C-alpha cells in the first residue's frame, strides 16, 4: 500500500503514525503539523523527522504561521496545495488524516 498521511497537529495524542508500516509512506505536514518541520524543542527536532517516510510541508500553512519555508528542516520538502493534489493522484493510493 502507498499511503499519504496528513499530520495536522503539533501535539499528537496517539502513536498511530509510528505503527503504520505501508510499503511506501508520505507524511504531509499541514495546519499546525507544520511546526514539526520547524520547531526544535530544547534543541531537538520532532521525532516525525526521524521517520523513513517522505516528508512534505504545506507552504501556505508555514507562511501563515510566520515560518519561512526556506528555514525548515532539509529533510522536509515544501509543497503547495497544487503539489499536494499531484501527490495524492500520482504518488499514493490512499490517504489518512491524523
Amino acid at each position, binding site marked *: 500500500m502507498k499511503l499519504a498521511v496528513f499530520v*495536522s*497537529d*503539533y*501535539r499528537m495524542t496517539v502513536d498511530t503514525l509510528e505503527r503504520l508500516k505501508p510499503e511506501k509512506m508520505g507524511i504531509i505536514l499541514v*495546519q*499546525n503539523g507544520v*511546526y514539526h518541520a520547524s*520547531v*526544535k*524543542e*530544547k*534543541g531537538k527536532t520532532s521525532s516525525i523527522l526521524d521517520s523513513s517516510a517522505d516528508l512534505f510541508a504545506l507552504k*501556505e*500553512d508555514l*507562511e*501563515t*504561521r*510566520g*515560518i*519561512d519555508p526556506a528555514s525548515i528542516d532539509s529533510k522536509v520538502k515544501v509543497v503547495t496545495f497544487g503539489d499536494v493534489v499531484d501527490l495524492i493522484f500520482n504518488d499514493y493510493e490512499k490517504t489518512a488524516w491524523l
Partner: protein
Amino acid sequence: MATTKLGFIVQRPGYKSENPKLALTHAIASQSVEIYLDDEDEVTCDVAFIGDGVLNCIKDQKAVENYQLNSTESHIKMALLCDLNIFVCKEDLDKYGLTENDIVLDANEMGGDLEVKVVPYEEITKMMEEMKHLLFF
C-alpha cells in the same frame, strides 16, 4: 470603585482551532463593557502566552495572503492598541529556540505604545495570582 481583573492564558498554538484567537478577541472585547458597569467600576485584563501558546507570537504571519484570514499577529497588535498587557513566557520561548527577534513585540506601525513583555514564568504566575478570574485557552 471596583476593578475586576481578568487573566487570559493562551497555551495552544493558533490556526488549527480558533481557540487562541478567541482569547484575544475576548480580552479586547472586555474593554468595551464599561457601558454596562456602574460609574467608576472597571474591567482590566492581561494576556499571557505560555507553553505551545508562544508559537502564536511568531511574527510575519501571512494568514491574510494565504487564507484571507486575520492573523493572530494582528490580534496581538490590536490587543496592544487597547492597552492590554501581553506577556510571553521566556522559558517557553527558549524551549523552542525563539528570541525576541522572532516574535511580535509592538504595534508601533498602528500607533500603539505598549510592548509585549517577555518575562519569566514566575512573573506570569504572579500575574495570575493577582487576577480575579482566569480563563485558559
